[in-house]
């Protein structure tokens, strides 16, 4: 028998709170006066039940066989079956005091006896609603309920107070319904039907089936101006984006009603021809992220979550327009996922459907010249973070961070940093160059690439690149060496700088290792050696530097 809380009565009578098998009030023939909720009859007997008791489903227990019932009436019916002698059959006829119940939750306002509730079922429901777990969920909307009867009541009305457009869409909010209704095709059709004088209205022209250009229904009663300039500029933008996709989206697109369905169909037909996604053997996840970066803006009904590039190419252009310009080239070694980055950078900035990245000499020069300063590992001003310091990365920023859940990238932060640093200069040079198509071969060894690039340069372009006057940080000598062929010409340079008889165009390996040697002798060994060390470097090459 569970122990119950001590009860206190307003009237001063001691009363023991009951569990199931004690005397229960008779059904009173006097109509009960209904008190205001929360303000009980002062003469009433206050009962405090524990949560367990309160929520117990079978409160009425037969004293003979201990069978539990949810309702008193059911218990009485059951007791009849025991063939009790007449005396025990009847309940006590004593006038029973009205009972009121308090909520067991101490923080609740109804915990106070002066705010007790008069109805046992009421207090049960109150306790569940306010302090209980919401186990009942509406399947139409997302509302949850703790009391089953509440849930049932809600389910009856859920979805009934709704706004339904003629087109079939249902809204729960009036303003969205109104806005939709105003622009809905169904309204256009309906108003067309109600037209008595078609010639004076343009509505017939707006019928769903009609695919005439909506630009200017001339007989429109609202005076609309001639086709505005802006529309054509819209088209122009798309056509500049559209490389070769002839099925244009814009002006001649089908009329409103078929619009939702037609473009996607047209999409899939046209876009597949103009989408070019080349992925040969590149499995790095970074590339797939980028492909999705570029695809996700062209949203269509068939957007796919990121997947490895190798299988299906999920690119579908939108409205047949822009897919033509998405060309993601990630070829070559998968060892450097960074290749995807810049390859795609320069590839997709081309607005044509061409797969080949541009190979203009000017660009090459720029890149090469750019590479020069970067190969010397210059400490980027770390003061960037400190100067902004607390003002920007301060509490506000931190506070906002808490709202967003912490990231779980595939690699940990430390691993990412390490890998990024490993990639270092050598990898970046090679991949950039490769991405530009400057280096024709796709040898897996990035250092070889790099060596090749050095040994077979275009003198004129290098000179021109240097002449561009881009900032070159770091020791200039190192820079020129990295370039491989400073202005003077390859042969001369290598002889002069390396002190070796390595001719231009010689064995790439040899020239590279020679380069390393010279670097090692002439400059800070650690810096230079580390800077050329790619992830694929074998240690013995390094070891030669002294």
């Amino acid at each position, binding site marked *: 028998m569970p122990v119950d809380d001590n009860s206190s009565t307003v009237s001063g009578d001691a009363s023991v709170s009951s569990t199931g098998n004690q005397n229960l009030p008779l059904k009173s023939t006097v109509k009960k006066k209904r008190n205001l909720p929360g303000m009980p009859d002062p003469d009433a007997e206050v009962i405090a039940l524990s949560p367990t008791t309160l929520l117990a489903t079978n409160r009425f227990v037969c004293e003979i066989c201990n069978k539990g019932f949810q309702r008193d009436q059911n218990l009485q019916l059951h007791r009849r079956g025991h063939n009790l002698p007449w005396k025990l059959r009847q309940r006590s006829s004593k006038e029973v005091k009205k009972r009121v119940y308090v909520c067991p939750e101490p923080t609740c306002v109804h915990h106070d006896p002066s705010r007790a509730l008069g109805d046992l079922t009421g207090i049960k429901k109150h306790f569940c609603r306010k302090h209980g777990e919401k186990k009942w969920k509406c399947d139409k909307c997302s509302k949850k309920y703790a009391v089953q009867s509440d849930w049932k009541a809600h389910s009856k009305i859920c979805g009934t107070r709704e706004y339904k457009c003629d087109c079939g869409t249902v809204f729960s909010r009036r303003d969205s319904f109104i806005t939709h209704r105003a622009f809905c095709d169904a309204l256009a059709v309906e108003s067309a039907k109600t037209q008595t004088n078609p010639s004076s209205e343009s509505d017939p022209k707006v019928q769903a089936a009609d695919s005439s250009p909506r630009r200017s229904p001339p007989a429109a009663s609202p005076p609309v101006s001639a086709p*505005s300039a802006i529309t054509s500029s819209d088209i122009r933008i798309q056509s500049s984006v559209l490389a070769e996709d002839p099925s244009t989206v814009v002006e001649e697109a089908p009329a409103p009603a078929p619009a939702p369905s037609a473009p996607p169909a047209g999409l899939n037909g046209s876009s597949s021809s103009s989408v070019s996604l080349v992925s040969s053997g590149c499995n790095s996840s970074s590339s797939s992220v980028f492909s999705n970066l570029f695809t996700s803006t062209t949203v269509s009904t068939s957007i796919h979550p990121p997947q490895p590039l190798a299988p299906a190419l999920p690119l579908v252009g939108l409205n047949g327009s822009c897919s033509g310009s998405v060309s993601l080239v990630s070829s070559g070694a998968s060892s450097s996922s960074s290749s995807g980055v810049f390859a795609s950078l320069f590839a997709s900035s081309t607005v044509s459907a061409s797969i080949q990245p541009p190979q203009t000499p000017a660009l090459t020069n720029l890149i090469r010249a750019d590479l020069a300063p970067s190969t010397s590992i210059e400490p980027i001003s770390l003061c960037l973070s400190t100067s902004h310091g607390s003002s920007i990365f301060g509490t506000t920023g931190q506070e906002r961070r808490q709202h967003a859940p912490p990231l779980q990238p595939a690699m940990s932060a430390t691993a990412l940093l390490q890998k990024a640093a490993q990639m270092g200069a050598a990898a970046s040079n090679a991949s950039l160059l490769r991405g530009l198509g400057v280096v024709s071969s796709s040898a897996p060894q990035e250092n070889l690439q790099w060596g090749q690039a050095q040994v077979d340069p275009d003198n004129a372009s290098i000179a021109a690149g240097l002449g561009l006057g881009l900032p070159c940080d770091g020791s200039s000598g190192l820079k020129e060496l990295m370039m491989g062929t400073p202005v003077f010409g390859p042969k001369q340079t290598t002889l002069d700088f390396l002190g070796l008889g390595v001719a231009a165009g010689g064995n790439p390996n040899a020239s590279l290792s020679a380069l390393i040697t010279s670097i090692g002798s002439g400059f800070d060994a650690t810096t230079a050696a580390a800077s050329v060390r790619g992830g694929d470097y074998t240690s013995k090459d390094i070891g030669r530097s002294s």
Partner: protein
Amino acid sequence: MKTEVRGNGGSISLQNPSLFNIPLDPITGALKGCLGSLDGACIEKLLLHCASALENNDVTLAQQVMWVLNNVASTVGDTNQRLTAWFLRALISRASRVCPTSMNFNGGSMFQRRLMTVTELVGYVDLIPWHRFGFCASNGAIFKAVEGYGKVHILDFSITQCMQWPTLIDALAKRPEGPPSLRITVPSCRPQVPPLLNVSKEEVGHRLANFAKFRDVPFEFHVKDDDPCLSNETFSTQFESLLTQLTRSQLDLRYDEALVINCQNWLRYLSDESKGNTTTVRDAFLDVIKGLNPRIIVVVDEDCDLSASSLSSRITTCFNYLWIPFDALATFLPKDSRQRLEYESDIGHKIENIVGFEGFQRTERLESGVKLSQRMNDAGFVSLPFCEDTINEVKSLLDEHASGWGMKREEDMLVLTWKGHNSVFATAWTELED
């Protein structure tokens, strides 16, 4: 084991020196302080480092940072990952301008233009209360201001393609004294920003007219054409020309009309750079509309300052602000929701402009509500408070959305908040009586 290495900038502690024979690895330095997981603060730092690397022509560092960011970024990940993806893309767009190719001389965006149908746009503006908040507040103020007038003329300068008006038409239709006759005029030029429709403005106006007729509201719709010779020009050029046509006669203003000027996400596209001693386009616009003696001017825009000349400060502010709509969408749309991706992509478009472009191409020059209010005051306008009815309407609107949305009042300005952060402001103005 740790190694302390001193370099030019400061000390960096390396965790695994065998891998880091490079004494001064910028990446490690950049992420100093980011332990373990890459959270929003770290991403912000990375973005800033990448931007500064690009500005210094340090391609290697830029690429390294981009590589790290690339591993973090995901358009279908959590809020931070998605934001990172769009920021990274904007930075790449910027980088591609550092190394221009023969194909993007025109500085074209890397983003594709997405066109919506009208019904799609309707759903779009109601996805989150971002736009609907402004609509509701503005329409409430307009309704109040035109009480007693039999004719109303609205000059609508906005980017949401008249999505605001059906609810106003509906409210006017139910006026006890009967609806006024309503005229709406829109300019023909519009910034090339999302949301973009696959139909013309005339078609939109046509549908509005249908609806107004359906509700028995006398209605007219005009597109104010500008010079067709300028159709190839940028928006700002077109608009400057349009400014000259905003006169009483050319707009056909009538004496017994209540003139309403509606500026929704608009002022930010008007240039705020003064060429020499001339007033800026933005201020010139305000002067022009003041000269038209409007009954009320409503200005709604996003509450953030994104027009700084420093790239780093723009990146930081932008990252910390656009987190808000991303987070709001994440609250109730699943990861792979197409609508969510579309919405985010449109925001990404904005990010690209703010971060990836400079000069006249950087058309997004948003200023905060406080600054805008100052500007309006300087131009000779006085603010009008929103009445209680309007405020209650806005509150009940927000109640119907997810529970993070709130509203607060800053003087006469109403501000939409998400989890307490300011997102959109709405203000109403009228001329200062001399």
